[in-house]
């Protein structure tokens, strides 16, 4: 794919996302037309007097927009870190949770729900999830990083072992939790219900700098796809770049999990999908994956919030929407390759 058509693909994705945001902000219990949504946004930006019904303006600004931004940012962050993990671990089956970040977050969150912790007010749950995720990451790196090389196979193995231990711990917590088990299960399935501007700001603070940091090393990531020794002889300090990207992508996904709960599928499938569309070059793949992930999660969240009669767990919907699209593209790419 040439640079021009890749740039076109990226701008199409970006425009679709912008359109989707306007559309999603108008959908819900109180319908607001796209024109009014645009007016609310521009009013706020220009700090001009309100030209739209204040109730509608408040619904859009205070209720829907934070939730929309959360879904968008979490989708972006998970898909970008998924693409980075696949590149780093040289494994197309890797995703943001391969190294146990999600199990760690789930364990931390479940612990906080079980014990009814509230040392940091409403932020306790996301904080515990984040601590769990970070501690898991450190444990995995410490286990596999002895030789200073962070060999992909060792990382995956360490991640699988730590995840298995934490899953057992999580099952035990669920067993102890009795009737509170449904709260834990529902948190684990992920949701964007009642997210605030604070959540959105938190996600933005992790996802945007993380994305830029990953993009900075995108070409090195391409070269590392040739294997560690080849990368080294092409002047990429593979060990250091790997450690940096690993920590960046993991922290990015840890914050996403803390904000939204564990949402699978996005980080695994979106990078694959985008690789079919835009090719394997990470300089294009990372932004495309981010936008694709944002579109998928925002669509799924809008569907469950405004269209379906009852809220369905978002992880279920992402798989139901994204799965068939992926199957279609996958089948098509197999055909063209053979043909």
């Amino acid at each position, binding site marked *: 794919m040439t640079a021009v058509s890749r740039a076109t693909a990226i701008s199409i994705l970006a425009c679709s996302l912008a359109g989707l945001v306007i559309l999603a902000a108008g959908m819900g219990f109180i319908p607001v037309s796209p024109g009014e949504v645009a007016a609310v946004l521009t009013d706020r930006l220009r700090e001009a007097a309100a030209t739209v019904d204040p109730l509608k303006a408040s619904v859009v600004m205070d209720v829907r927009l934070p939730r929309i931004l959360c879904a968008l940012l979490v989708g972006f962050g998970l898909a970008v870190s998924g693409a980075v993990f696949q590149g780093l671990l040289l494994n197309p089956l890797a995703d943001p949770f391969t190294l146990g970040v999600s199990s760690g977050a789930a364990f931390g969150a479940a612990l906080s729900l079980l014990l009814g912790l509230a040392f940091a007010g409403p932020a306790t749950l996301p904080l515990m999830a984040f601590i769990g995720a970070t501690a898991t990451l450190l444990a995995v790196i410490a286990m596999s990083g002895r030789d200073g090389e962070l060999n992909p196979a060792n990382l995956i193995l360490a991640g699988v072992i730590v995840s298995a231990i934490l899953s057992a711990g999580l099952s035990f917590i669920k067993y102890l939790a009795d009737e509170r088990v449904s709260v834990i299960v529902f948190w684990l399935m992920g949701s964007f219900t009642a997210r605030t501007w604070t959540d959105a700001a938190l996600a933005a603070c992790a996802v945007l700098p993380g994305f830029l940091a990953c993009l900075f090393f995108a070409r090195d990531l391409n*070269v590392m796809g040739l294997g560690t020794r080849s990368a080294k002889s*092409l002047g990429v300090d593979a060990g250091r770049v790997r450690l940096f990207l690993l920590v960046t992508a993991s922290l990015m996904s840890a914050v996403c999990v803390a904000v939204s709960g564990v949402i699978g599928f996005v980080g695994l499938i979106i990078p694959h999908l985008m690789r079919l569309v835009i090719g*394997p070059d990470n300089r294009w793949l990372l932004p495309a994956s981010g936008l694709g992930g944002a579109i998928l999660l925002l669509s799924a969240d809008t569907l469950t919030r405004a269209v379906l009669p009852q809220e369905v767990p978002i992880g279920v919907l992402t798989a139901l929407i994204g799965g068939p699209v992926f199957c279609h593209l996958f089948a098509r790419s197999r055909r063209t390759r053979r043909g």
Partner: protein
Amino acid sequence: MDSATLAVTSLSFGYGPTPVLRGLDLVFEPGLVHGIVGPNGCGKSTLLGLLAGHLPPGRGNAALDGVPSREYPASRLARRLALVEQQPASDFPFTVFETVLMGRHPHIPRFARPRAKDLDIAEKSLAIMDLGHLRDRVLADLSGGERQRAMVARGLAQDTPALLLDEPTASMDIRHALKTMSELGRLAREKGRTVIAVLHDLNLAARFCDRITMLAQGAAHASGSVEQTLTPANIEAVFRVRAGVLDTETGPAVIYAQELP
């Protein structure tokens, strides 16, 4: 392009407690094709890894122009020395051209687009390795020999004074093996490159190398010109194979008779 001299002095190395190289002293001068031959597991690839600065020497050192390879910053070393590996694998669908262009990575600043010179060198390397018709194919879909040609092309595109190759012709057909070796010879003669190639085919080594080092159990059994090194006695001692070396009109030819018990 300036020249590069590689040298190892009393170099020893082991993986854990297993010694692989024991006190090697070798010099690889510019303008020559240096062949390294020896049986499996005698430390050939390890020697390349040490020269390329990927492995830390146990004792002694491996140096490029008098400075230990490990002391170069990665990006600077990559503009002085290229290593073409034996088994590169990528699960990602990069095309042949994209892969070869990665050879220009150390020459292209971050966020810059490849310049005309970079694209030109990549195209020339493709042409030398007969890959023009495969340039837009996905590397992973090609045969082993074609992939290996792409890897050599990537090494050529890196355009460094020192070029290290680990069994570059192992899975190539005869024509491409000869072509690869002639190109390496041309680079050494005309551009003063230092070429070091690990080879299994003693006939290719005899025909194209200016210097040959025979490694046996981590030590240099013999080192010098083809006539000095590839003798029936040396081949028998190093490979435990009885062989004859014939003088033919196309150069020396090694004939293997039988393996010794």
